[in-house]
C-alpha cells in the first residue's frame, strides 16, 4: 500500500474493502496502516454523510470538548474538527452525545440571560425541534402522496392506457363517464387495453394472449429498470429498510443509508417495483423514505446535525411518520415506532412523533391521492355486530396467522442465507427478472392476483351489500328483501361465489409461496401488504364458509341462539380483517400497534376485541414456534450489533469470564498518561486494531485515568503534526492536567487531555453479567472497563456480549460482524 495516501482514502478503505476491516476491540490481524497526511488541501464542503473530517476551520462546531474538561484549558486549545465523530459501521457513544447536548443546552441557557439576541437564540433553539418535525411531516407526506399517485398509474399501465390523458389510471379515466354499468364499474370508451390498441378488439383468444404478453413485458421492464437504478446509483436502497433503521436507531452508523441519493432512488424504484406486480408492499420502504427525509432535514439545524443522539430522536419520529402515511394511521404509526423500531423512546419523542405524523396525515389528505379525501385504500364502513361464539373462528385465524408467520420467517431467512452465501447472490438482476417473470406469468390468469394487492385487500374487506356486483358478492337473492339499513341477511352463495372461492384458494397458495422469495430482493420491498393479503384471503374463505354453514344449518346448537334465518349474523369482511391482522402479527410480532393500525384503517371500534384476540393468539403461537420476528431475524442474519431489549440473559456468568484479554491473550494495550512519545503511540495504534485505549497512570500501577478513542488520537496527532510548532516523533504525549516544562533541547510536548473521556464506565470483575448487559442496554454503552481491586484488568465490548449471547443460544458467534 503506497504511503502518501490522504487520510480520507484510508477512512473509506476501512469501511469497504477487507472483510476484517470492521474493527473490534480485540479482533485478529487486519491490514490497516497508520497514515500520514499527504498535505493535499482537500475540499470537504459537502456535509452529507461523508465521514466529516472538515478541514475548513471556519465552521468550528465543537464545544468544550468531552466531559469534565475545565473551560480554562479551552482558551489554549481550539477544538479540533473531526474529534468526536464516528467511523462508518461503528456504534456511537450515547453517553458522550447526550452529555455534549446537555453542555450545549446549558451554555445556551446561561448565555440567554445576557442579551436579547441570546434570548432569541435560545427560543430559536427550543423551537427548532418542532420546526424540524413540521418539515419532516410535510416532506414525507408530499413524497408519499406522489408515490401513491404514481404507483396507481403505473400499475394500470400494464393493462392499458387512457386516451383522454395518458396520466390517468383506469379508475380516473372513467371517472366522469356515463358508460359505467352496474356490472362493470370501470368501463368507458376512453380506456383502451393494449389488445384494443394493437389489434383493435378486446375479445377472443388472440386479444387475451396480446394482453397477457404485454402484461408480462411491462412487468419485466419495470422490474429491470428498478434493479438497474438501484445497482447504478444507490445500492443501499434495496430491501425493506426497517432492520437497518432499527440498528441505526440503536446507535449504529451506516453512512449513506439515509442520504439524498438513497432517498431519490428509493422513491423512484419503489413505484417501479410495486407496479411490476411483484408480491411486495410499500410500507417498509416508506418508513425508510421518511427516515431519509428526517436525516436530510437534520442538516439544516446545527443542533441535530452535530449530535448523533439527538438525530436519532428525529429518526424515531420520522419512522412514525412513515407508517402514518403508509396506512393513514397516525396513532398506529407512533405506536409502531415505539414498539418495533425505536431503541430509546423518551416521552419527548412521543409528542414530537405525534405532531409529525399529524402533519404528514394532513399533507397527504390535501394532496388527495384517492379522490375521496380518504387517507387509505381499505376504508371500510360496515358496523355489523359480531357474536361471542365467533371468537372460536377468530382464534383459529390467529393460530393460522402464527403458524404462517413462523413458516414464512424460517423460509425467508433460509432463502436469504442462500442468497448471501451461494451462487444465487451473484446474479441479482437476473434473479429479479426471473422472479418477476414467474410472478407475472402465474398472476395474470387469476383475476384476484392480477389486480394490485391493495385492491384485493379492499375487496376482501368489503362486506357484500345490495350495491355490490362483484364476483365475490354474487349471492342468490331469495325473496324481495326488506331493507334495514344497508345490511342484508345471510344468503346462499351463488355460482360465482364458488368460483371466487377456488380462485382465492389458488391465490392464497401462490401468494404464500412467492412472497418468501420476493422479500429481500434487490429492489425496495415491504411485507405488510403481502402478509395482510394472505391473512385476508384466508379470513374471507373462512368467513364465507361460516356464513354458508350458518345459513344451511341454522338449527345447530351453536347457531341456534343468535343466528336465526333472515338475520345478518356472519360478516365475512370482518373475518378477512381479523385474518389480515393475525398474519401480519405472526410475521412481525407486533401487538398493540397492529390493533391500533387495523382499527384506524377500518374505523370499527367494535372490532377491537376480535382483533386483539387474533393478534394475541398469533403472537403466542408464533413465539412458540420461533423466537424472533422477521426484522430481528434479518438483523441476526446480517450480524448487526443490535442488543435486544427483550432477550433475557439468564446464565450465571461474571464479568471476568467475558472480558478481554483472556488468559491466553497478550495483555491489555494501554497508553500511559505521561510516559509515551508520539512515535510510541503511533506504533501502538499501528500494531493493533482496537478502536479505543484505556489511559493509565503507569504500567506498574495500572490505575485508571480515562479512555481515548483511536479515531480521536489519530486525528489529534495528525492535526498536531501539521499545525503545532515543533511536534515530532520524539515529542512526549501528556494526558495529565499540568504538563511539566520541558528542558530547552527537547521538543515541545503534545497535550491530549481534551480528547480523553475522564469518566469511563467500570465494573468490577465479580459483577454478574446480567447487570453488565443491563448497563449496556440502558446506557447505550459501547465498551466497559473491568477493574479488580481498583486496578484495570480488562475490557468488555458490545461485540463480546453479542458473541457470548450467540454462543449461549447455539448460534455461530462469528456471525457478529460489526462492532
Amino acid at each position, binding site marked *: 500500500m*503506497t504511503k*502518501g*495516501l490522504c487520510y480520507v482514502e484510508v477512512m473509506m*478503505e476501512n469501511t469497504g*474493502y477487507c*472483510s476484517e476491516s470492521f474493527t473490534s476491540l480485540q479482533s485478529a490481524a487486519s491490514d490497516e496502516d497508520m497514515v500520514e497526511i*499527504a498535505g*493535499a488541501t482537500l*475540499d470537504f*464542503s*459537502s456535509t452529507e454523510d*461523508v465521514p466529516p473530517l472538515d478541514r475548513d476551520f471556519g465552521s468550528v462546531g465543537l464545544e468544550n470538548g468531552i466531559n469534565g474538561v475545565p473551560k480554562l484549558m479551552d482558551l489554549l486549545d481550539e477544538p479540533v474538527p473531526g474529534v468526536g465523530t464516528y467511523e462508518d459501521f461503528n456504534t456511537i457513544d450515547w453517553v458522550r452525545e447526550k452529555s455534549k447536548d446537555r453542555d450545549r443546552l446549558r451554555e445556551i441557557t446561561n448565555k440567554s440571560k445576557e442579551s436579547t439576541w441570546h434570548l432569541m437564540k435560545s427560543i430559536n433553539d427550543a423551537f427548532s425541534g418542532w420546526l424540524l418535525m413540521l418539515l419532516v411531516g410535510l416532506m414525507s407526506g*408530499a413524497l408519499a*402522496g*406522489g408515490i401513491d*399517485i*404514481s404507483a396507481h*398509474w403505473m400499475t394500470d399501465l400494464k393493462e392499458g392506457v387512457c386516451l383522454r*390523458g395518458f*396520466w390517468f389510471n383506469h379508475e*380516473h379515466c372513467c*371517472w*366522469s*363517464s*356515463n358508460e*359505467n354499468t*352496474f*356490472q362493470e*364499474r370501470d368501463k368507458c370508451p376512453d380506456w383502451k387495453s393494449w389488445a384494443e390498441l394493437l389489434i383493435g378488439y378486446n375479445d377472443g383468444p388472440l386479444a387475451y394472449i396480446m394482453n397477457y404478453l404485454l402484461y408480462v413485458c411491462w412487468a419485466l421492464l419495470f422490474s429491470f*429498470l428498478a434493479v*438497474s*437504478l438501484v*445497482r*447504478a*446509483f*444507490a*445500492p*443501499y436502497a*434495496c*430491501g425493506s429498510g426497517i432492520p*437497518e433503521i432499527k440498528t441505526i436507531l440503536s446507535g449504529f452508523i451506516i453512512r449513506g443509508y439515509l442520504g*439524498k*441519493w438513497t432517498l*431519490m432512488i428509493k422513491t*423512484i424504484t419503489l413505484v417501479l417495483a410495486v407496479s411490476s406486480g411483484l408480491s411486495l408492499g410499500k410500507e417498509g420502504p416508506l418508513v425508510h423514505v421518511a427516515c431519509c427525509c428526517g436525516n436530510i432535514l437534520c442538516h439544516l439545524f446545527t443542533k441535530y446535525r452535530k449530535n448523533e443522539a439527538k438525530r436519532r430522536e428525529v429518526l424515531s419520529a420520522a419512522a412514525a411518520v412513515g407508517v402514518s402515511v403508509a396506512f393513514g394511521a397516525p396513532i398506529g404509526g407512533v405506536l409502531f415506532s415505539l414498539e418495533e423500531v425505536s431503541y430509546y423512546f423518551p416521552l419527548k419523542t412521543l409528542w414530537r412523533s405525534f405532531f409529525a405524523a399529524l402533519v404528514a396525515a394532513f399533507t397527504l389528505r*390535501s*394532496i*388527495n391521492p384517492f*379522490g375521496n379525501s380518504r387517507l387509505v385504500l381499505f376504508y371500510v364502513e360496515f358496523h355489523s355486530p359480531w357474536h361471542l361464539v365467533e371468537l372460536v373462528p377468530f382464534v383459529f385465524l390467529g393460530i393460522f396467522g402464527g403458524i404462517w408467520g413462523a413458516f414464512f420467517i424460517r423460509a425467508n431467512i433460509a432463502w436469504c*442465507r442462500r442468497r*448471501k*452465501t451461494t451462487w444465487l*447472490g451473484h446474479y441479482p438482476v437476473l434473479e429479479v427478472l426471473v422472479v418477476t417473470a414467474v410472478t407475472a406469468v402465474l398472476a395474470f390468469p387469476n383475476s384476484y392476483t392480477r389486480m394490485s394487492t391493495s385492491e384485493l385487500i379492499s375487496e376482501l374487506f368489503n362486506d357484500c351489500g*345490495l*350495491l355490490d*356486483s362483484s364476483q365475490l358478492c354474487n349471492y342468490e337473492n331469495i325473496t324481495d328483501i326488506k331493507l334495514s339499513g344497508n345490511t342484508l341477511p345471510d344468503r346462499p352463495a351463488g355460482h360465482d361465489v364458488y368460483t371466487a372461492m377456488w380462485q382465492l384458494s389458488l391465490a392464497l397458495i401462490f401468494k404464500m409461496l412467492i412472497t418468501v422469495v420476493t422479500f*429481500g430482493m434487490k429492489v425496495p420491498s415491504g411485507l405488510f401488504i403481502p402478509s395482510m393479503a394472505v391473512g385476508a384471503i384466508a379470513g374471507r374463505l373462512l368467513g364465507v364458509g361460516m356464513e354458508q354453514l350458518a345459513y344451511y344449518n341454522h338449527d345447530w346448537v351453536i347457531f341456534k341462539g343468535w343466528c336465526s334465518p333472515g338475520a345478518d349474523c356472519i360478516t365475512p369482511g370482518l373475518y378477512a380483517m381479523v385474518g389480515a391482522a393475525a398474519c401480519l402479527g405472526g410475521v412481525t410480532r407486533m401487538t398493540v400497534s397492529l390493533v391500533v393500525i387495523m382499527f384506524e384503517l377500518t374505523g370499527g371500534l367494535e372490532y377491537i376485541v376480535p382483533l386483539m384476540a387474533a393478534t394475541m393468539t398469533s403472537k403466542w403461537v408464533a413465539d412458540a414456534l420461533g423466537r424472533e420476528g422477521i426484522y430481528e431475524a*434479518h438483523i441476526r*442474519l*446480517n450480524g448487526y450489533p443490535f442488543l435486544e431489549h427483550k432477550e433475557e440473559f439468564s446464565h450465571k456468568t461474571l464479568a471476568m469470564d467475558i472480558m478481554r484479554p483472556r488468559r491466553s491473550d497478550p495483555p491489555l494495550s494501554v497508553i500511559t498518561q505521561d510516559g509515551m512519545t508520539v512515535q510510541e503511540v503511533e506504533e501502538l495504534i499501528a500494531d493493533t486494531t482496537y478502536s479505543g485505549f484505556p489511559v493509565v497512570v503507569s504500567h506498574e500501577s495500572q490505575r485508571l485515568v480515562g479512555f481515548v478513542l483511536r479515531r480521536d488520537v489519530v486525528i489529534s496527532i495528525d492535526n498536531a503534526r501539521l499545525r503545532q510548532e515543533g511536534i515530532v516523533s520524539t515529542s512526549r504525549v501528556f494526558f495529565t492536567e499540568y504538563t511539566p516544562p520541558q528542558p530547552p533541547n527537547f521538543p515541545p510536548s503534545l497535550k491530549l487531555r481534551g480528547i480523553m473521556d475522564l469518566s469511563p464506565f467500570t465494573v468490577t470483575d465479580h459483577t454478574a453479567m446480567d447487570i453488565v448487559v443491563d448497563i449496556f442496554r440502558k446506557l447505550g454503552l459501547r465498551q466497559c472497563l473491568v477493574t479488580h481491586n481498583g486496578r484495570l484488568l480488562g475490557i468488555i465490548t458490545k461485540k463480546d456480549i453479542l458473541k457470548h449471547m450467540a454462543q449461549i443460544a447455539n448460534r455461530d458467534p462469528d456471525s457478529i460482524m460489526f462492532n
Partner: protein
Amino acid sequence: MQAAGGVRLLALGCVLVLSAQLAESKNSEDIRCKCICPPYKEIEGQIYNQNVSLKDCNCLHVVEPMPVEGKDVEAYCLRCECKYEERSSGTIKGTIIIYLSVLGLLLLYMVYLTLLEPILKRRLFGHSQLIQNDDDVGDQQPFANAHDVLSRSRSRPNVLNKVEHAQQRWRRQVQEQRKSVFDRHVVLS
C-alpha cells in the same frame, strides 16, 4: 450530490405548488356525484354520474332519466346511495409528469455513466489514461485516481473541478456500497 438534492427539492416544490394552486380552482370536471342504484323489481342496477355540487348531490337531481314513476320513485331512491367525490386532475397530471421526467433523467444519466463516459474519456485522454476509469477492478485504482484528481485540483480550483471532484467522491461511495451489498453481501442480505 448537490444536483440531486436540488432536483428533489424542485420536484417537491412543484408538487406542493400545484396542489396549492388547484385547491382553489376547481375544474368542473373534477367533481362528481355518483349514485349507485341496485336492481329494483324488473329494473337492472345502474350507476349515474353527474358534475353537480354537494348540495345537489341526491337521488332526485342525479338520477336522470328516472326509470320508475310516481310512488315508486321514493322506494327506488331509498335504495340508491349517492356520494359526492372530488379529485384534482391537475395534481395527478403534475405528479406523473414530474415522476416520468425524473425517471427519464436518471435513466439517461445511468446510460451516460455506464456506456458513454468510458468512450468519451478514452477519446479525450487517450489510452494511457484508461486506468482512470472508476469501474476498473482492483482496490488500488480508485485511490490512485483520486490522488491524481485531487492533486490536479490543487492547481486549478474552479467550479468545474469541484464538480468533478465531488462526482468522483460520490462514485467511489456508490462503488463501495455496491461492493458491500451486491458482491460481498455484508449489509442488506
